[in-house]
């Protein structure tokens, strides 16, 4: 589909703002609708748009499958790691309040970190599923 001129040009124009929008959703989940999951999906959608226009191979050259799998694992581990960290900090599993001297602050920090974990995991999984389904012949 690369030969399709209009689609190519417009997609090139749109992909960076989509990625930024995903990151915005990631970071503003505290104040408005959104959060890690939605951000991950939108980020994935940006990559999917790129893949639809330039081919799944192009996505693979931007983010190879190995990297995507590693990122998915790291996203999940980041989340669970916060849980373990709060155990070490003296709370129970996932008690972010234990991450900081001030419980409310600790909670806020914990929420931001785990949302990032969610975002990473979801974005990579969405891209993995897209690549696998798209490359199947």
């Amino acid at each position, binding site marked *: 589909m690369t030969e399709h001129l209009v689609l190519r040009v417009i997609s090139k124009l749109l992909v960076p703002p989509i990625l930024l929008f995903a990151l915005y959703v990631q970071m503003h989940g505290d104040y408005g609708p959104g959060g890690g999951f939605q951000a991950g999906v939108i980020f994935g959608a940006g990559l999917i748009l790129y893949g639809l226009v330039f081919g799944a191979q192009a996505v693979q050259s931007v983010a190879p499958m190995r990297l995507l799998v590693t990122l998915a*694992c790291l996203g999940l581990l980041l989340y669970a790691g916060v849980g373990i960290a709060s155990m070490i900090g003296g709370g129970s599993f996932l008690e972010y309040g234990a991450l900081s001297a001030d419980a409310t602050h600790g909670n806020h920090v914990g929420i931001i970190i785990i949302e990032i974990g969610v975002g990473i995991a979801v974005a990579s999984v969405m891209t993995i599923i897209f690549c696998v389904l798209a490359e199947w012949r």
Partner: protein
Amino acid sequence: MIATHLPALQVALPLIAAPLCILLRRDRYAWAFTTLVCWGLLAVAALLLDRVMSEGPISYRLGGWAPPIGIEYRLDGVNAFVLLILAGTAALMMPYARQSVEREVAPERRHLFYAMFLLALTGLLGIVATGDAFNVYVFLEISSLASYVLIAQGRRRQALAASFQYLILGTIGASLILVGIGFLYAKTGTLNIADLGVRVHALGEAPAILAAFAFITVGVLIKLALFPFHVWLPNAYAYAPSMVSAFLAATATKVGAYLLLRFVFTVFGAPFAFGTLPLKEILLSLSLVAVLAGSLAAVFQTDLKRLLAFSSIGQIGYLGVGIGLASVTGVTGALVHVFNHALMKGGLFLAAGTIAYRLGTTDLSALNGLGRRMPFTMAAVVIGGLGLVGVPVTSGFVSKWYLVQGAFEEGLWPAALFVLLGSLIALAYVGRLVEAAYFRAAPADAEPVREAPWAMQLSTWALIAGSLYFGLHTELTVGIAERAAAALLGAP
């Protein structure tokens, strides 16, 4: 310090191990790591059971929020016991896994396979450990998704179709459970199981509660594969990889039984379920049909794994009978049978996998004369089979003893009769196995077979020996199960 966090670790450990397993990439490392984690889980489960038995129920607040606000892990005798069964079977099966998986799964996907196995285990452990109704749904889906994928790894293409069928039915079941939980929430405003129990009791016989009860029961019965919701089970177990058949047969349906116990007794309460509603009649009649139909169907199978799968449907019927009796003896019988059947069926499926490992097939005709060619494996099959029948000295006898006794206590002698009849039919299919293995000559052109590798034997025999041991030394299992059952039923 770590002791206070044991309940969380029980579930978090395999959850964290799964991505690590993928990051390890090399399949041997992944196997070794998974084994380590499983044995660690067994240790955690044993410690937890010990603590629950000595100190009473444990409550653990995830995220540190007090129960109805946050999610709570609440361990009493019942779920600590089931956790031990889950972690135990997983740990005992790990030595077997390496060679079996190397035979049945392509090298580049083995680490993913082990990760998926850990995820399935995570889900099952999470369902059992949690004290929050919605959390049950989430972990149910983790275990289900992982199971679908694992079943689809079977080498024959029927595995895919079986997995898809399971996916559809399993998702319907989970969705029905979700509706039920939704109704409960709309009527009570809470999701905590203990809290639900109190509030549902106060509501009495509201229609929404009745509907919730019906939805949750049907949903759980689908997961439990009780007749007539069993249609997904035979193919799924027959075509899954050996390791997966054994693990799921030993654990997945047991968790279904646990869920039924938990929802019926803790949330809705026995008086509601058995007094107001005819659950007893429905459950008993379905279970008895399951016992007969499952066992009868098993007799006519031509494939060992399918035979075992149909026998599972019959054995699930026994669990249903025990729960349906709704007495301490009956529930004790069901709980003991959960334990014993996990050991027996796990061992039998492992043995079937061993046969497939050496012969490449589990067709019954291939079993001819195998008693001399693979003596240890076939001995395991026979002992396990006798356990299914419920011959004295095996552990199967213990559970059936309690079931029959429970039926007589309730004055339901036809139920007792059916249980015994089921055993007779089981004798028929086990007899077929014995006949093929010991009383028929191997085909003349049969290739020479060696006995299976020692690691696989080890796992198989560990489970089978366990079933023998607990047939003789009943005080441990029965003791725990009786206390757990009494606690569930609220008896003094």
